[in-house]
């Protein structure tokens, strides 16, 4: 049996990690959307 506290911490860590990755990906996506919408050519 796993203690409740350990399971809560594990899930919170998992979710925090995934949220961080998703937010990072969103910022990058937003950057490229801005570039595409303003029509800047590299």
């Amino acid at each position: 049996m796993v203690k409740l506290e350990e399971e809560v911490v594990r899930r919170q860590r998992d979710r925090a990690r995934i949220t961080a990755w998703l937010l990072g990906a969103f910022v990058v996506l937003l950057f490229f959307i801005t570039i595409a919408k303003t029509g800047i050519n590299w």
Partner: protein
Amino acid sequence: MPAIEMSNPAALPADWRDILALTKPRVMRLVVFSGLCGLLAAPELPPLVLGFTAILCIALAAGACGALNQWYEVELDAKMRRTAKRPLPAGRMDRGAALHFGVGLGAFSVLLMGLATNLLAAALLAASILFYVLIYTVWLKPRTPQNIVIGGAAGAFPPLIGWVAATGHFAALPLLLFGIIFLWTPPHFWALSMFVRSDYAAAGIPMLPVVAGPRTTRKQIFVYTLLLAIAAVAPWPLGLTGPIYGVTAIGLNLGFVILAARVLANRATEPAQMDPEKKLFAYSIVYLFVLFGAVVADRWLAW
């Protein structure tokens, strides 16, 4: 997952796998594919990142619909074998969290679509979410055996949204693609509901086989298949697609009609003897993938 020493798992923060399961990833595949085909079939393509974002938004909106559907139908899901192990009926997740996740994801997908593509695509995406949740899930599904006929429109939006995201306007071909999915939905879902009829009956959902019986359902499946075949072949004689799509559509629809005729001829009432229905259901999924793939192939190879 490790066993947990507690009486109320929903009191825990939800596991990310359960949050992902709320979005019905398997259903999402077909939605994303049809949206992508709508976008790729358009005469003009947006920059890659904007096209990617449009498809991402369609996927997120589909996920939001799945979450809101499961939030609303938690009691119904608990009564059906097929759905009883989902996160909410199984008690692995708090119901309020599912609602917040669904609303948040839906709003985010619409805002991002508006930002990345155009307001018409965002409005269509919002309409598709509202149609699926309010018109289909809340209103039609528990009330009428015609639920999936009208509700099928919700699943028919993605190719239209994909096209509008690319071009900013409506056209005849994406409207026909909308019509194809609309007419495809009844035979697809009625074939499924034939062999899981007892589940729907137990949950009190008035699916056609539960309310009208197998014979009427088989007739309806056949009628809708004929209408689908007409709509699916139509883009070719109308000059909206070329022969690659036309020949594929004729072959696929011939197969669909033959399988539907076998369903019509079947007299079985027990799921174990419903092979024609199971085959039609499986074929209908392949059918839609290949047909929409043909729309794109026709656009890119023939023009």
